[in-house]
């Protein structure tokens, strides 16, 4: 759709004590990881649907760095970046994409279903908007227990017309549930541009209709993301009810590896690549002398090494045993 970059409604000044270099490293790691995943898909190591996060790194990176490590994350199927940002082991993520037993979901979930409960990463989900009610439930549970743990629920712009989006936002608002909904508006749901199917193109205004504190932010600016989520998370944690953040961003690759991209122009993609979140932050940090060009090169090398190790680990890991097929359909009944 538009080639204009939506103005950010959030103050983009970085919050104090944010480690911009760490954010840059994470974004680089994600970018490299996705490139490697694409390569492994081409080599037939990864099967099924593979949805890459390239271009959207700033959203997950900035948001998750602004949360507590025990805050729940509930994400969509384009979630490798969120898993890396939360600190799941890259090797175990790649192993999951390979379907290996060492994968975070034991090779049973695949790219769309990463889980690591030990890191409060409550899963990637493949039914559009189907995970929003779960986010409400996790939040309800923490409210019920009286903790100040919150939930971050990542959704795509394509979810906003689903009935579950409506039901979840209404319930979260009425019950003042501690959830930050983060809508990654990358302008397309598969090949469908927002404005063609949505009565209200500005997603955050939708959320306002439920009396939810909502704003829009430049999703290509990791510092803006971090600042906005820090601010909203604090409110939510304080018990003021849910918040909603619309992050305007762009995916560089097709929807999945199968996408012919008939619905958008090369120019549009080029336009957004100029706004690349990694390049932006690198330039900023070099400009203000926080780091040097050679630091960048070193960081790149680190991402390369991390990714290579991950692929190696995945490659060398065993498949789950066939005998495990029927395991874990049901849990063990505790003897009363």
């Amino acid at each position, binding site marked *: 759709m538009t080639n204009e970059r939506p103005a950010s409604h959030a103050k983009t000044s970085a919050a104090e004590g944010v480690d911009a270099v760490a954010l840059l490293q994470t974004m680089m790691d994600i970018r490299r990881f996705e490139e490697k995943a694409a390569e492994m898909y081409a080599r037939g190591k990864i099967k099924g649907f593979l949805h890459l996060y390239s271009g959207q790194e700033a959203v997950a990176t900035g948001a998750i760095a602004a949360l507590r490590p025990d805050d729940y994350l509930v994400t969509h199927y384009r979630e490798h970046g969120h898993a890396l940002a939360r600190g799941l082991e890259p090797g175990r993520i790649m192993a999951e994409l390979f379907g290996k037993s060492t994968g975070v979901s034991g090779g*049973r979930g695949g790219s769309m*279903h990463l889980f690591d409960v030990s890191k409060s990463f409550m*899963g990637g989900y493949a039914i559009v908007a*189907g995970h929003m*009610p*779960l986010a409400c*439930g996790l939040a309800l549970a923490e409210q019920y227990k009286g903790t100040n743990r919150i939930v971050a629920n990542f959704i795509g712009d394509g979810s906003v017309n689903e009935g579950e989006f409506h039901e979840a936002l209404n*319930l979260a608002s009425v019950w003042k549930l501690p959830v930050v909904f983060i809508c990654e508006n990358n302008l397309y749901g598969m090949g469908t541009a927002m404005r063609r199917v949505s009565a209200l193109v500005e997603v955050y205004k939708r959320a306002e209709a439920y009396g939810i504190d909502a704003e829009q932010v430049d999703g290509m600016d990791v510092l803006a993301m971090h600042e906005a989520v820090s601010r909203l998370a604090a409110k939510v944690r304080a018990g003021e009810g849910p918040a909603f953040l619309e992050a305007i961003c762009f995916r560089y690759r097709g929807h999945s590896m199968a996408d012919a991209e008939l619905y958008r122009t090369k120019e549009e993609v080029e336009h957004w690549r100029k706004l690349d979140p990694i390049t932006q932050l690198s330039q900023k940090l070099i400009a203000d002398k926080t780091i040097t060009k050679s630091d960048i090169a070193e960081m790149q090398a680190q991402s390369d090494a991390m990714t290579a190790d991950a692929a190696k680990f995945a490659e060398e890991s065993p498949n789950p045993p066939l005998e495990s097929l029927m395991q874990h359909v049901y849990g*063990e*009944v505790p003897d009363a």
Partner: protein
Amino acid sequence: MPEITYREAIRQALRYQLQHDDRVFLMGEDIGAYGGSYAVTKGFLKEFGEKRVKDTPIAESVIVGAGIGAAMAGLKPMVELMTINFSLLAIDQIVNNASKLRYMSNNQISVPMVIRMAGGAGSQLGAQHSQSLESWYAHVPGLHVVAPATPYDAKGLLMTAFDSPDPVIFIEHTALYPMKGEVPDDPYRLPFGNADIARAGNDVTLIGYGGSFHQAFRAARQLETDGIDAEVINLRTLSPLDTEAILASVRKTNRAIVIEDDWQFGGFGGEIAAIIQERAFDHLDAPVMRCSGADVPMPYNGALEQAALPQEADIIRLVKSMVQR
């Protein structure tokens, strides 16, 4: 033992859970201020407060989904969906999330929750309010499907449901709420997958659950006067299914009939028939028969509705045709 209704038996189990387990809470449409559309939770809001008894918006998908999420976080939600007909609006949550999360997450996540709903037909509620979809839920791995036929079953099975580490679809038959039966005051648990041989017999095995069990039982009583000795099995749970009890009975009687309110074509009776002929083939003197609901959207008119549901007379006719075989 005191005689109480099916409704009261369910109330006792729910109250016990609310009193003894802080993780347990109830949510659903009109379970609080209204008292529950079948008055099962009447008075609970006053007794336990808004934290434990939550009235929800009319939004089945998020009610069930929020229950799943709360269970993922270690609570034990009981979600009431009023009737099984409305569960269609939450079925994506039940099938794509509740039943699959443990497996997809490689056992990292448990979804210990109970989803109660009233099912069955017979009260002239019309096509959109008279469905029996238990066969659908029984088809889904990862779910337990419970269908109590008596007050005793209802309390004991519901108690067990709250111990389950996995989602339980608990289907109450609307026609049974006022029915009375003996129920111990003290809590007790009935294991899943354990059918009740409600009546021993040698000539034919009648298999029912929920409402259809009672038709089977009444038919058996009448058959007695014709000198036909029917064994009656009350399944109690469809998933897990007590296959052994069914097979043991058929090996003895050599004949079986499944009675179900649900539509016959593609229904659960087919599964039972398939299992029996598969595993007790040489013991069968006649094909396994089904006495099921007619394959029609339920008509409102009372006579038509009864004609669309299995009747004792139908069971008796079937049995006689089989024993004469």
